[in-house]
């Protein structure tokens, strides 16, 4: 599905966000990306959802190089990728139904898009999507009146309406409490499993990543530090991944001390003293 060869992204101010990343992701795969903040995970995801162009290297989607796509092809490719962000990125003043139906903008004509703002076009679909993410009945609420967790569900409902082949979730649970975090991660996993979507998720929590994903990619300083099954991710590897990043090291120590932030929802990690 995705083929990355030597990706590098240097921003205008000269900072190197992504240094050299090569990896392949197959159709229907579920992959978690972990690593310290500032490692380049978010930049990588913005390259993967085709909104940021790499400075060097190539990105191929289903064998077609993204840099060679025409405007129309680029738009079509984007409709196949659904992104869920750390912040919800919804328009707070719009009603939930419009934010959810915005998932259709890739296939709607301008006229349909405009008329839907007056009279929602396919409100039933939006209602079904909301029911699947567990907040039925919020269809006509104003989006900024919902809680952070509910807004994150609206963002997921929008991606369901978009019905992409790939779901990219960039730290989707970093602003919600632990129990909701587990709910949202499992929801995304199950939804993409049902419809055989590829799921790529950036996660701050090592426990969530290692519990719910069959493939773990560790990113450090814009490079792939490791790319392994969760069983092979040792405490030494993790210590190396987060070395020098105090907050994340504290997370490892907490796990080491046997503290279970997610209760029984995450299995004990291999290689950590219990």
């Amino acid at each position, binding site marked *: 599905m995705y083929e990355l060869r030597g990706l590098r992204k240097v921003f205008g101010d000269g900072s190197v966000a992504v240094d050299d990343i090569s990896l392949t992701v197959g159709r229907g795969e579920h992959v978690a990306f972990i690593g310290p903040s500032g490692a380049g995970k978010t930049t990588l995801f913005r390259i993967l959802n085709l909104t940021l162009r790499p400075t060097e290297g190539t990105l191929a989607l289903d064998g077609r190089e993204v840099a060679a796509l025409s405007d129309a092809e680029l738009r079509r490719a984007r*409709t196949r*990728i659904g992104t869920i962000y750390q912040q919800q990125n919804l328009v707070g003043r719009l009603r939930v139904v419009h934010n959810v139906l*915005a998932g259709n903008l890739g296939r*709607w004509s301008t006229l349909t*898009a405009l008329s839907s703002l007056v009279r929602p076009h396919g409100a039933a679909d939006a209602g079904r999507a909301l029911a699947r993410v567990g907040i039925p009945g919020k269809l006509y609420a104003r989006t900024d009146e919902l809680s952070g967790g509910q807004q994150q569900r609206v963002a997921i409902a929008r991606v369901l309406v978009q019905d992409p082949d790939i779901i990219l979730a960039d730290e989707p649970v970093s602003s919600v409490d632990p129990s909701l975090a587990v709910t949202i991660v499992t929801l995304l996993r199950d939804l993409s499993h049902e419809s055989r979507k590829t799921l790529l998720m950036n996660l*701050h929590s090592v426990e969530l990543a290692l519990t719910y994903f069959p493939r773990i990619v560790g990113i450090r300083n814009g490079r792939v530090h490791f790319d392994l099954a969760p069983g092979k991710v040792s405490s030494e590897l993790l210590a190396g991944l987060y070395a020098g990043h105090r907050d994340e090291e504290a997370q490892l120590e907490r796990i080491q001390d046997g503290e279970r932030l997610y209760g029984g929802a995450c299995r004990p990690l291999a290689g950590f003293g219990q």
Partner: protein
Amino acid sequence: MARDSTAAPADRSPASASKSAFPWIFTAAFAVSVALSLRAAQVDPRLLVESAALANVVKFVRGMFPPQLSREFLGLMLRPALETVQISVMGTAIAILIGVPLGLVATASLTWRGVLHERASRVGRWALGLVPYILSRAVLSVFRSIPEYVWAFMFVRAVGLGPFPGVLAIGVAYGGMLGKVYSEILDSVNPRPLETLQAAGASRLGVVLYGLVPQALPNVIAYTLYRWECAIRASAILGFVGAGGLGQQIELSMRMFQFDEVLTLLAILFVLVATVDFISARIRAWVA
């Protein structure tokens, strides 16, 4: 997980943390300019309490009471009062007609910068974006930097006395202000929802309709209503140069030393302004 929120802002630019000397320099410059202006503007409170001045004030205030409330006078003033409202409504309408197109072109995110122009060529950006952008900013700037009073003076010369020059003056001067502020509102919306829509494959128009417009519209409406409030006041002033409405009546009564009529006219103006304030506050609360 809770640590995340504290970790994220740490990699922001360090410059914001360093203490700036700007507030001090600004305060000092402000104090000096006030001190200099005090002399240059010939501010002299003693003039207010000089006996001749006081006598004039007393005469003026005495003359106001009792206000002129005869049925005949009030009946005569109905038309100018209505005219003032009509000048403000038509003036604001023309200001919107001028402000919307120029304001849209003067919006950087619509003409040359940001997510809508990711694939524009360098030449395209300059010729179709930046050049019209700068031109419309310049036009808006000229429109609003000339006071409506001066515009009215010129339009009275051009189209003669009456409400029409007042309408034109408000339309042009406020069109310049509306366009400038519209462009600022549109450029200050949160760009993240726009990027999100674009990432999902929305067309440019789709991004504008579902990201830009809903974020900006309440502020655009609120500011337009605020300008309408100002237009009511302005249309009274414009009457002084012969552009109709209550202002012209105030000026006439002043010149005839009919201060009782002046007080009545000011009261009518006050009621008009208060009513418009009330209506616009209600609408703004509704769209917010």
